[in-house]
C-alpha cells in the first residue's frame, strides 16, 4: 500500500511508514496522507 504526503507530495511506502510511531510523513512530519489507487485492474458492471 502506497501513500502520498499532502504537504510535500513524497511517495511513502508501507515500510517507511512503520519506521515512525503513528501516522507521519517520514520526510516532513506532516500527518495528512493520501492513499494511492492500487495498481490492480478493477472490474465494473456497466449498469
Amino acid at each position, binding site marked *: 500500500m502506497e501513500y502520498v504526503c499532502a504537504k510535500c507530495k513524497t511517495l511513502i511506502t508501507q515500510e517507511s511508514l512503520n519506521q515512525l510511531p503513528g501516522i507521519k510523513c517520514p520526510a516532513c512530519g506532516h500527518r495528512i496522507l493520501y492513499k494511492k489507487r492500487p495498481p490492480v*485492474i478493477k*472490474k465494473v458492471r456497466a*449498469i
Partner: protein
Amino acid sequence: MKIEVIEHIQNKNQDLMKFILEGVTIELANAFRRIILTEVPSMAITEVLFVENDSVLFDEMIAHRLALIPLTTDLKNYNLPDECSCGGQGCTLCQVQLECDVRAQNNEVIVYSGDLKSMDEKIRPVSDNIIIGKLGKKSSIVFEAYAQLGIGMDHAKFQPVCSVGYKYFPDVKIDNSKLTESDIDEVIKHDHTKLFIKKDGKLALINNYWKGQDFTGSAERYVPHGAIKVDYVPNKFIFTIEATGALPIKEILSKAIEIFLEKLDEFEDQLKKVVITQII
C-alpha cells in the same frame, strides 16, 4: 394490413420514420410498439475493466456513462449471450472488446466516445461526440470495455429506439352550416400550423392535415359547439419511430415482426398443450 411510409428522415442527426398502419386492431399496433421497445436486441457495453482512472468521476459512474452510449449493431454475426454456444461466458460470437487510452499532458482533455477503439469495425459508437468525462492535467484514463447484445426488457440501454408510439388517424368533420364568416376568420387567425383554409367562403382542411400537429382539436373552442368535430378512424394509426442509430429502422421493424411471429408460434404450442391435457 397496409403500411404506407409518409416520412423517413435519415441523416447524422436524426433517424425518424412515420408510417400509416391500416387495417389492424389497436392490440396489434400496441404489440408492435412493445416488441420494438423491449424485445428487439441491440448492442451496449455491459462490463468495463479499469486499468487507470485519474479523472474526478468514479469508475462506476464512467461505466454507467459508457453503457448508455448507443453502438451500431450487427444482428447477423452476433448472438444473445444466453443463446450463445459459450453459455454466456463471453466469446467472439457474443462479445466485442472496445479499448480506450487517453492521457493528458499539460492541458485538460475531454474524453469522447470517438476515443473508444473497437475490435470489430461494425460495432462502434453511433456518434463520436458523446462526452464520457474530462481529465485534468497529467491524468489518464485507460480501460477495456465489453459490449454484448441485450434486450430493452433487461435494461433501457439495449433499446434500439428513443421513442416509439402511435396515434389514431384523425377524422375531422366540419359543419359549415353552423359557422359564420367571423368564426372562419377566427379559426384561420389562430391556426399557426396552417391546417385550415378558406375555400369558396367555407372552412376546409388542407389535404395532408394529419401530417401536422393536432391543432384541429383545439380549433373546436373558437367555433360554436359541434361545428368542428374531431373524431378518429378505428383501425388506422400513425406510427412514429425514432431510432438511436444502433439499428436501421427497417431492420428494427423486420426483427420485431420476426419476434412477433415466434411468439405466436409459442402461444399456439402452449394452447395445444392446454387443450390436449383438458381433453384427456
